[in-house]
């Protein structure tokens, strides 16, 4: 008798174990397996199609060629860093010898002038897009709040915003380039003209979604909350600080996320033409270079650009979650 009950107990535990593992497997398959399947199908189609496209620079790169270039780009980065280190070591040694010979000699340290590696270019791009975006935010958010508070101002500026919003960065760039060359004249420039041109172009294009979303957020604040402010006779500054800003934070952040996406897209085009040493310039240089590896290297850059764009969006989302009081408004 007792042995059979034990057996039944064992069976049920095993069954229960099976069930829980099935549940976990199901969850995993939704979270991991399906995306993996999607990616595999994409990789398969890519490699099949790539084999059949023949360009003047050789066969279109498949996944394998791109992966190779990723490791090449990394190796180049390491090599370049070693070269730089060797260069500085040589300088230090040379200076030491010179000082030993002649105590009055003042040692000079020259900069290493080797070319930027892919990783350097990523850093440059990130820096350019961030400064451009912050400049845009510094203008767009106050302007948007102001437009949201005043119907008249909104009527006055809205046509301008609507007209400039769809303008491509490529149209702005020549204008920005000429203006920067004319106005930014300095013997010892703090930043290069190419950087400034790219940054301003990024700002000009990423300004508008933030202006629009902020002004909509501000103008659609619940009239009850505005009445509370009126009954309390809050002064304008306190009104903006305590009512307007917190109430429109969700919309402001939606605008900021849109803008950051636009900024990152625009940046690549701007860097290409302005020759700012970032990812855009990398793509352009590889295109001009025209070696048999070029297309694979550009494809590697494309993947990196996409991945960074995705990470930037997640970062904005994380900040939004942290800052916003309305958790329901924060969707991926």
């Amino acid at each position, binding site marked *: 008798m007792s042995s059979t009950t034990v057996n039944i107990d064992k069976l049920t535990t095993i069954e229960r174990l099976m069930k829980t593992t099935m549940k976990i497997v199901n969850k995993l398959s939704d979270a991991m397996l399906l995306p993996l399947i999607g990616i595999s199908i994409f990789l398969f189609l890519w490699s099949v199609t790539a084999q059949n496209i023949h360009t003047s620079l050789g066969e279109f790169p498949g996944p394998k060629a791109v992966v190779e270039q990723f490791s090449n780009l990394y190796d180049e980065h390491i090599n370049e860093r070693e070269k730089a280190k060797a260069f500085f070591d040589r300088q230090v040694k040379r200076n030491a010898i010179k000082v030993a010979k002649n105590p009055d000699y003042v040692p000079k340290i020259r900069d290493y002038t080797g070319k930027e590696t892919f990783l350097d270019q990523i850093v440059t791009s990130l820096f350019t897009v961030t400064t451009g975006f912050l400049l845009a935010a510094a203008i767009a958010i106050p302007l948007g709040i102001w437009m949201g508070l005043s119907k008249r101002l909104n009527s006055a500026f809205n046509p301008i915003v609507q007209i400039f919003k769809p303008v491509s960065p490529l149209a702005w760039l020549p204008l920005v380039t000429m203006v920067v060359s004319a106005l930014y004249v300095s013997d010892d420039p703090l930043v290069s003209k190419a950087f400034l041109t790219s940054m301003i172009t990024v700002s000009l294009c990423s300004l508008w979604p933030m202006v629009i979303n902020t002004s909509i957020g501000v103008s659609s604040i*619940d*009239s*009850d*909350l*505005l*009445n*509370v402010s*009126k*009954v*309390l*006779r*809050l002064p304008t500054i*306190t009104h903006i600080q*305590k*009512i307007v800003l*917190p*109430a429109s*934070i969700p919309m402001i952040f939606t605008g900021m996320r849109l803008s950051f996406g636009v900024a990152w897209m625009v940046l690549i085009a701007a860097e290409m033409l302005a020759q700012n040493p970032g990812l855009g310039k990398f793509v352009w240089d590889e295109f001009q270079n025209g070696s048999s590896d070029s297309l694979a290297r550009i494809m590697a850059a494309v993947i990196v650009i996409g991945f960074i764009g995705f990470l930037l969006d997640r970062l904005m989302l994380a900040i939004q979650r942290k800052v916003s*009081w*309305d958790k329901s408004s924060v969707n991926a």
Partner: protein
Amino acid sequence: MNSSINTDIIEHAFLNISQIDMVFPTPTGGFTALKEVDLKIDKGEFISLIGHSGCGKSTVLNIVAGLYQATTGGILLKNKEVNEPGPERAVVFQNHSLLPWLTSYQNVELAVKQVFNKTMSKAEMKDWIEYNLQLVHMGHAMHKRPDEISGGMKQRVGIARALAMQPEVLLMDEPFGALDALTRAHMQDSLMEIQNELNNTVIMITHDVDEAVLLSDRIVMMTNGPEATVGEILDVNLERPRNRLNLAKDLEYNRLRSEVLTFLYEKQRKVENISQKTAAKNIIEKQTVNEI
């Protein structure tokens, strides 16, 4: 106009709603929502405004609050004209209107800081905020945000915020309209308790006949719009403190109740059809939105 005749009354009235007309401009000409609304209220009086929806009760309240401007006529509070909103006429809004990103404490604090900025020290303000929250039995949830508390609790905080301003007049726009019957009864008892202690001057809009009789010193019944005005005023001389259970069998209570019901459902029975009514209401709402 005829101020010489009314001087006596004006000087004695604490709050004087004097000959108010309210005309909302519409594309097809003016829509007269209120016509010659006239009401004098003493200090410490609890007034209910009752009437069918769309009759302009809220408009009257908003004019007293200073959120709307009467087309003609005006409001005198202690013989001073009212023409803008201010904390001495605190409003409890129908849907609580708490700032959702602040805790109950911070919501009350915003009001207290604004009103008692110069007269209270930080410690006094803290005590005053806590006192008011405890008055509405919200001491236990002071540091919770509006989305973490129930509808009745939110309305309590809204009342605490209004009381904390120490207003001359407390204006309540259907404060319990959005609550379920049990919570509403509970809130009415709380309000009577607070009123017993503070003896505020209150104007409350309500749809609820029982609520009006239970809470008020006078019930102001409004006629149907357009051109709504004060139809009848009913004095409620029931002894305080009032108890809803005892009053249920009280003859005077039931007489008052049936008077209000008679006014609403016989004398001022709604005759217009629904579509007309909603059309008129839409026009008013559009206008008010534009104004704000």
